[in-house]
């Protein structure tokens, strides 16, 4: 599904990713953990195609095609969804209008018919129910005046509506109380299927109690320095990242 090979990327002229390789198969959930500044968010943004993140070498193939030469909207229509670390407030654009535009743009890209107003509203109420959200927020402008937790829930809600094949969660769990955390994990678990993969970037093991990953990777100094099963997350929780420097020759404490 996703194959990253020896990826190097710079932000504002500074190299952040320094030879990152990662392979995510269909139906798999991978957790990426690591200290601050190790490149976790950069990886998520490079995959989603954000401007200002420049890939200097390496390759990324998604569904067998080169991802890096695709526009952000093409990537989205091909099934990539980035849950933002800092979701953007967009005054003047109602949430539901935005979601319908997004869904229909993706459908058009895939050669499908636009969704009818009726089906769209049915879809909305079904997914709201699934996440135990009330519809108050959806009547407002995109993320405008939302609390941190509400913004993150809204990301997950959007994800359920757009039904991606590859979700990138960029520290979606940070700053969330246990109820909001539950919304995030319920959202991801609802999509779990042999056709759905996710890369979950997180600082904390606690999200992984709810979203059980197939693989856990430690990102440090712009590279994956260790990979393992879910027990690796528990080990990191216990021991922190201090060992990284010794083990891999990367200074993770700076």
């Amino acid at each position, binding site marked *: 599904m996703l194959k990253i090979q020896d990826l190097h990327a710079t932000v504002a002229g500074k190299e952040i990713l320094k030879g990152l390789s990662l392979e995510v198969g269909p139906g798999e959930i991978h957790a990426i953990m690591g200290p601050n500044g190790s490149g976790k968010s950069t990886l998520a943004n490079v995959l989603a195609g954000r401007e200002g993140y420049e890939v200097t070498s390496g390759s990324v193939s998604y569904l067998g095609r080169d991802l890096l030469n695709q526009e*952000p*909207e093409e990537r989205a229509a091909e099934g990539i*969804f980035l849950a933002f670390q800092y979701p953007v407030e*967009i005054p*003047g654009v109602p949430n539901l209008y*935005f979601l319908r535009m997004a*869904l229909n*743009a993706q459908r058009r890209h895939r050669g499908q018919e636009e969704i009818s107003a009726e089906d769209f509203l049915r879809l909305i109420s079904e997914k709201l129910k699934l996440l135990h959200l009330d519809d108050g927020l959806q009547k407002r402008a995109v993320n405008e005046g939302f609390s941190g937790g509400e913004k993150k829930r809204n990301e997950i809600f959007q994800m359920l509506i757009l039904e991606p094949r590859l979700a990138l969660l960029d520290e979606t769990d940070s700053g969330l109380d246990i109820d909001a955390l539950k919304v995030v994990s319920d959202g991801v678990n609802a999509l779990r299927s042999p056709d759905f993969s996710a890369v979950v970037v997180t600082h904390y093991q606690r999200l992984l109690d709810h979203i059980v990953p197939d693989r856990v990777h430690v990102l440090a100094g712009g590279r994956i320095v260790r990979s393992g099963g879910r027990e690796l997350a528990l080990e990191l929780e216990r021991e922190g990242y201090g060992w990284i420097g010794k083990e891999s020759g990367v200074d993770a404490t700076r």
Partner: protein
Amino acid sequence: MSQARTLAEWLEHPPARDGLLSTEARHEVARLATLLGLPGPRDEAWRYTRLSGLEQEALELGVEAPLPDEHQLRALTPEGVTLDRLVVVNGRPVPSLCQIGPLPDGVGIGSLSAMRQAAREGNSSAAQLLEHLDLLSQSRQRAFSAINSALAEDAAALWVPDGVQLPRPLLVLSLVLPQAGPLLSQPRLLAVLGQHSQATVLEAHGGFGDKAYLCNAVSEFHVQAHARLEHVRVQRDSVAGRRVSGAFFQVMAGAQARTHTYTLGGRTVRNEIRMELVEPGASGEINGLGLLKGETHLDNHTHVAHLAPDCQSHQGFRTILAERSQGIFTGRIQVAKDAQHTDAVQQCASMVLSPEARAVARPQLEILADDVKCTHGSTVGSLDANSLFYLRSRGIPGDLARRILIHAFCSTQLGRVRASEMVNPLDRLITRTLADHA
């Protein structure tokens, strides 16, 4: 016969017949207009706007105007809302094109000349309406008001008696149809809202063809005690069209006047909007939206005069600037010495979409009372890159995402229109206009 003369020549020899004013009065105002002269480079209020070459230009008054075709009428008519309609061509109301439904007793809608006839026949409200003519336009100081008073042939007029609510919005469709050469069009509107009355007035101005013209429009609104006026003005001039507009509002005790000016085109447009809050408890709102591209130059001037205690005002202007357009906003808040407890807000925001476009904002506060709340703010920005990426990351193509964000920037202005039946038609108009911008 249509004649072309320079403005100075027209003012020296105004048409020798009754027009907006009597033959005698128009000659007097014409002399005044000549004395005032056109604003020049040293005139601070006209610093950003030049009507260069106007003095030398031979202009027709367009008295023998052709009738507009259906397409032209439809182009300026908001869809999906039932309205009463007055049609004005080159400044002159055309009775055969007016469509007025049943009205409550005493409401007067029509041409000023018809009102004058009615007054002669003993209609007292028509006589009262006429007494309000040219009281607010400042034609003793403002050259373009004096020119309009001297050369306008007629006016559109609205009289709403005390306690009456206008059943439908009044649409004043004002078209500029240049004929052989450059045209001077002088539409005029006089509206008087009696005490405790209510009215929604939509002025839709448009210019057609590729010939140059100057439209010098003057509107006067008397909003008497506890009356409510919602005034929307849409201006869609042709690329060769120049417009100088003056809108003047007098708001009495406890009354509310809200005005919205949407400028959607033209070569050079200068809007002057003046609102006087004369008695305690009056409130006023001046909003504006400019969707500019090409070479359009828009100069908005507002003046809110707080002349009595306990009045509120709000000014909100937003402008989208594409290509080589320019948008200037000068907003003045004046608070007189005894206008205590004034609450005045002014906001101006510009979204600049091209490196060649230019936005200027100049707030001017003149506060002589001490117990007042006055705030103002202005921002100039471009499309927000984070918002754009957010929309694109959800699958919305870049050009559509840009349009959505530009529309969102405009939509806060729509939110200020209280006449709910006008919101959707205005929204469609904006959406159509923006289709060319992103």
